[in-house]
Structures are given as structure tokens and as C-alpha cells.
């Protein structure tokens, strides 16, 4: 069917078309905007799953814009591509699945969550644009195009963070901080694009990767890209925006923001592995990323324990969990040079790190949705004011237990699966790192027990007596997430073998990435 090789662009174009139509539809009737948004994100979720099946069976897909055929990467005998192309390999479709699932459930959750606010059509339009920005960042094979979609995702998330800004001051302040951080990171990415263009006169990831000579300028471009993308992903030295942005945004948006910051983490891995793969001395860069990871883990957890606002606490945990991913992939990168160590534990470390990205998106999303449910019913996020909610909100309590157990890495849940992979492989690399990781995991469990006790247990408080369970659409979204968490927890090797492993291989083998573009097909 002719449309089958147009899937990569349809995943991006359908939510974009829906984003443009939502303001027009809202002139007709208000409810239709929510349904249109959920429909558009549902279609792109189905297309993502179809594309995953295609990529795992056939191999990386390339989609060239405006060429006479969708896979004509090198026009008429040239040695370099001139058009923009989407290059979707196992790693980018892995991130694509996370984006599709998280944004679809976010749209369903906000069907009833957002009814309280006015300007609902603008909210849905921005949500669709944020999803388009994330899909674009993950699928594009062109560095300038990556900058454009990074900017779309940043502006849409800033507008969504300060969505409640009209009647409160704090969301505007959080939005301002996030805007400054994402402007600096986007502009330094543009500066690095300028450096690559100035040297090689090319704008395609794969073309530059095949021609890169790791000159003095390329070291500087790498030196610019790593801190800037780590800043966008919320790693420690520049994580100040994370607690504010995650706690002030509406709950479904926070869940999508977690996936958005992981999209820039994916960009960091893409730059390090696919652009610089063999040419950089992997040990030092690997150790830099490991240090970023360790700092994020430790500082994230220690800051989280003292928090009393439930969403700020979860935001600091998001920072510490990002540390796990950086640790896992950093170890994989550090041993990239010697093949037998790579074979021995490097690949399992990377598998743990990348699998942790998906697990984290799932259980952190669930935790933020439960916090949103509490806020939706009780109107407060302060743990001291909450108490005895387990009596009224039974489902939310169950979902919270599943989420908290998953983040702490308790066995039957998915957090355990990826953390175990990280522990055992990092132990062989350097025992101290894995011990720190375990200590951080225990502290995470401690802080979530505290949250569970102060928010859910305790006597029935008088001011919460009319609190009911959350509406059906919110319960449905949380139920789907917990089913995914339990499923991943019970059958981790099913996911690791045929989803995470190809993603890791597609990151490590640079030739597979450049081959699809320069080698034709």
C-alpha cells in the first residue's frame, strides 16, 4: 500500500494537522477539541507500533522530503544528501513509543483534569505541538531540523508550564526559568550546527558522521553539545529548573515533560554514539557522563527527602533516576573502545540504561498522575496538609503503591528489571559506582514510604470528607500505566531481547546508521 513507506512523516504530520485544527474546531463546540486530540494521538500511537514492527523486521527507515521517491537519499550520483530526511532506527523508534504512549495517556488524563480551567482548546493545541516537537526530535536525521523541533518542544512546554499563570505567580516564574534554560541550550545547539556546517558544508547526521575528522573544532562542538543537552535532560549541575517546572505544570503535562527531557537525553546519546562514535576517546567522555550520572543520582535523592511538596519531591526523584540512565549508558560508552569488555558487560550496562528510560517514563508518569489526582480532589500539594486519603481514593492509592514500588526497584515491577541490569554490569566495571546506585535506590524507597504515610495513611481528616475517587478517564490512564509497569516487571527479557537490544546495537554500530543514508538502502 503506497502509504506504508510514508508512516514516519504521518506520525508527525497528523498531530500537527490536529494542532492547527483544534482552534477552528473549538469555535464549533468545546468538547470536540479533547476528542480530536485523543484521536490524533491515538492514530500516531498505532502508526508508531506499526513502524516499530517494520523497523525491527526490515531495519532503519529513511524518509526523504520532497525527493522523487521516499528513500532516494543521494540524488543523481552525488556523494552527500541535500534534502532533509527522517532517519528512524531502532533507538529512535524506542523513544518514539515512549512519546506516543505517554502523550496519548496524557491526553486521556486531561480530558477530565483540564475541565476546571478555561482556554481548553489552547491547552490541547499546545499538548499536540509538544508531542510533535518530541517526535520530530527523535525521528529527524538533520541537525538543523533537530534544533527546530527542540525549539518547538521548548516553547510548547514553556507555554504549558505557565498555563496556570493568570491566577498564580509561581507557574510564571517556573516557566521563565525553563525558557531561559531551553533558549541557551537551543542556541548553543545552533552554534554547534554552525561549526559543523562551517567545516563540512553538510547538515545531515549520517553524512557528517561519515566525514568527521575529530579536529579541534569538533572537540569544541562536542564540548558544547554534551553539557547543553545534559542541561535540557535535567542532569545535576544544571538541574535547577526541573523541580520548579515539574511541580508547577499541570499533572499530565509533567508526565509529558519527563518524556520531553528524555528526548534530549536521546539526542545526547545520538550525538555521542552516532556522530562521534569511534573517533572520540570513549573513556574520558564515558567517565564525564558517568560523573554527571552519579551527581544526578546522589543530589537528586538527598534533595528529595527534605521536600514537603509532593510534586517537587517527585521532580527531584526524576533528576536522580536520570542519573541511572546516564550511569548505565556512560559505562557502555566508557568501554566502547575495547571490544571484549564491551561484549562482557558494556552492552548489558547500556541495555539497563536505555530500558530504564522507558521504565522511568512509565512509573514517573504514573506517580505524577497520582499526584495530579490528589491535587484534583484536595486542591493542595503540601504533604503536611494531606492525610487519610486512602479511605476515599482507593484506586489512586493502589496506583501510588505500584508507582512507588516500581521507582524504588522492588522485584515484581519494571524498575527492578532495569536497575538489576545496571547494578550487575556497573559492578564489573567499577564496584563503587554500583554501591552508590544501590544506596540511592534505598533512599528513594525511604522517601516514598514517607510520602505514602503522610498522604494516604492516618485518620480520616474532616476537610476531606466529600473527596470522591477521580473521574473515569483519569483512572483509566493510571490503570493502563500500571498494567504496563506490571507487564514489564514480570516479563523483562521479552522487552529487553527484541526492543532494547536492537536499540543498543543501533546506537553502538555507527556504520548501520550512516549506511542507511550514504549506502543507499
Amino acid at each position, binding site marked *: 500500500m503506497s502509504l506504508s513507506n510514508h508512516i514516519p512523516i504521518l506520525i508527525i504530520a497528523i498531530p*500537527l494537522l490536529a*494542532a*492547527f485544527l483544534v*482552534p477552528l474546531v473549538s469555535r464549533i463546540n468545546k468538547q470536540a477539541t479533547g476528542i480530536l486530540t485523543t484521536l490524533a494521538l491515538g492514530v500516531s500511537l498505532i502508526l508508531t507500533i506499526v513502524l516499530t514492527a517494520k523497523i525491527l523486521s526490515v531495519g532503519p527507515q529513511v524518509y526523504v*522530503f*520532497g525527493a522523487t521517491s521516499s528513500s532516494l537519499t543521494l540524488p543523481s550520483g*552525488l556523494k*552527500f544528501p*541535500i*534534502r*532533509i530526511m527522517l532517519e528512524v532506527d531502532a533507538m529512535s523508534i524506542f523513544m518514539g513509543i515512549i512519546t506516543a504512549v505517554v502523550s496519548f495517556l496524557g491526553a486521556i488524563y486531561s480530558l477530565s483534569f483540564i475541565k476546571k480551567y*478555561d*482556554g481548553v482548546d*489552547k*491547552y490541547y*493545541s*499546545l499538548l499536540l*505541538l509538544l508531542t*510533535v516537537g518530541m517526535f*520530530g526530535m527523535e525521528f529527524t536525521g538533520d541537525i*538543523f*531540523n533537530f534544533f*527546530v*523541533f527542540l*525549539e*518547538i518542544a521548548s*516553547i*510548547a512546554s*514553556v*507555554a504549558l508550564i*505557565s*498555563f496556570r*499563570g*493568570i*491566577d498564580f505567580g509561581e507557574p*510564571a516564574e517556573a516557566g521563565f526559568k525553563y525558557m531561559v534554560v531551553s533558549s541557551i541550550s537551543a542556541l548553543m545547539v545552533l*552554534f554547534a550546527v554552525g*561549526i559543523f556546517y*562551517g*567545516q*563540512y*558544508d*553538510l*547538515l545531515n547526521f549520517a553524512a557528517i558522521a561519515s566525514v568527521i575528522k575529530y*579536529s*579541534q*573544532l569538533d572537540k*569544541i*562542538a562536542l*564540548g*558544547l553539545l554534551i553539557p547543553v543537552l545534559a542541561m535540557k535532560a535535567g542532569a545535576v549541575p544544571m538541574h535547577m529548573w526541573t523541580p520548579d517546572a515539574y511541580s508547577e505544570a499541570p499533572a499530565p503535562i509533567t508526565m509529558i515533560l519527563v518524556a520531553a527531557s528524555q528526548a534530549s537525553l536521546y539526542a545526547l546519546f545520538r550525538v555521542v554514539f552516532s556522530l562521534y562514535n569511534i573517533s572520540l576517546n570513549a573513556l574520558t567522555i564515558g567517565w564525564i557522563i558517568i560523573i554527571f550520572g552519579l551527581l544526578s543520582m546522589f543530589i537528586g535523592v538527598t534533595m528529595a527527602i527534605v521536600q514537603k511538596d509532593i510534586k517537587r519531591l517527585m521532580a527531584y526523584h526524576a533528576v536522580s533516576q536520570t542519573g541511572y540512565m546516564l550511569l548505565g549508558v556512560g559505562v557502555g560508552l566508557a568501554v566502547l573502545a575495547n571490544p571484549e569488555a564491551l561484549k562482557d558487560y558494556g552492552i548489558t550496562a547500556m541495555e539497563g540504561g536505555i530500558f530504564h528510560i522507558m521504565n522511568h517514563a512509565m512509573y514517573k508518569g504514573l506517580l505524577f498522575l497520582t499526584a495530579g489526582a490528589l491535587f484534583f480532589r484536595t486542591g493542595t500539594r503540601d504533604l503536611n496538609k494531606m492525610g487519610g486519603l486512602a479511605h476515599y481514593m482507593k484506586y489512586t492509592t493502589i496506583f501510588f503503591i505500584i508507582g512507588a514500588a516500581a521507582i524504588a526497584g522492588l522485584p515484581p515491577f519494571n524498575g527492578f528489571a532495569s536497575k538489576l541490569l545496571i547494578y550487575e554490569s556497573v559492578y564489573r566495571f567499577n564496584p563503587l559506582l554500583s554501591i552508590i546506585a544501590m544506596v540511592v535506590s534505598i533512599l528513594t524507597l525511604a522517601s516514598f514510604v514517607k510520602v505514602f504515610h503522610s498522604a494516604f495513611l492516618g485518620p480520616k481528616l474532616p476537610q476531606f470528607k466529600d473527596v470522591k475517587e477521580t473521574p473515569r478517564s483519569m483512572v483509566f490512564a493510571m490503570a493502563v500505566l500500571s498494567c504496563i509497569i506490571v507487564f514489564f516487571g514480570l516479563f523483562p527479557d521479552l522487552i529487553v531481547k527484541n526492543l532494547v537490544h536492537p536499540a543498543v546495537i543501533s546506537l553502538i554500530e555507527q556504520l548501520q546508521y550512516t549506511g542507511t543514508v550514504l549506502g543507499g538502502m
Partner: protein
Amino acid sequence: MKKIIFGIAFIIFFSFLVVSAINMRTFGEPTLSEMDDYFIENAQSETGANNVVTSIVFDYRGFDTLGEATVLFTAVVGVVALFRGVKK
């Protein structure tokens, strides 16, 4: 104390930029320009437009411009969403 850390970070950042400016090829003589020469020669025949820059913006790199228009649309929706309470 915060000022000193910010100062050091600024110095490092700025030295990165200055070193990259110094090492960049000399101004006015692009060492490699095959992609641009291809555009200059073939833009007229392939897209039929005299203005090569416009043919790049709308035909060769049209997806950038779609992302571009989306950025502007996001900014407009964001600004309108921020000031939706204004009744005047």
C-alpha cells in the same frame, strides 16, 4: 560564592566560543561548498524559482519551514493562552 562559580562557568564557555572562532576557516573562503554549489546550479531547473534561497527554504528544506511556521503558531497560542484572562 555563587558569583565565582558563575564567573568560572562563563569564562570556560566564552573560551570555548573564542577558540572555535579562531580555528574556524578564514572568512570569505569556504573550504567545502559542494552542497551549496549544487543548490546554485540546480535550483532553477529543479524548482523553477529564480531566488535560490527561497527555493531552499520552501522546497529543498521545506520541512524546516513547516517546523518554523509551527514555532510561530506555538508562540502565538502560548501568548494568547497566557493572557486569556484579559477581558478589555
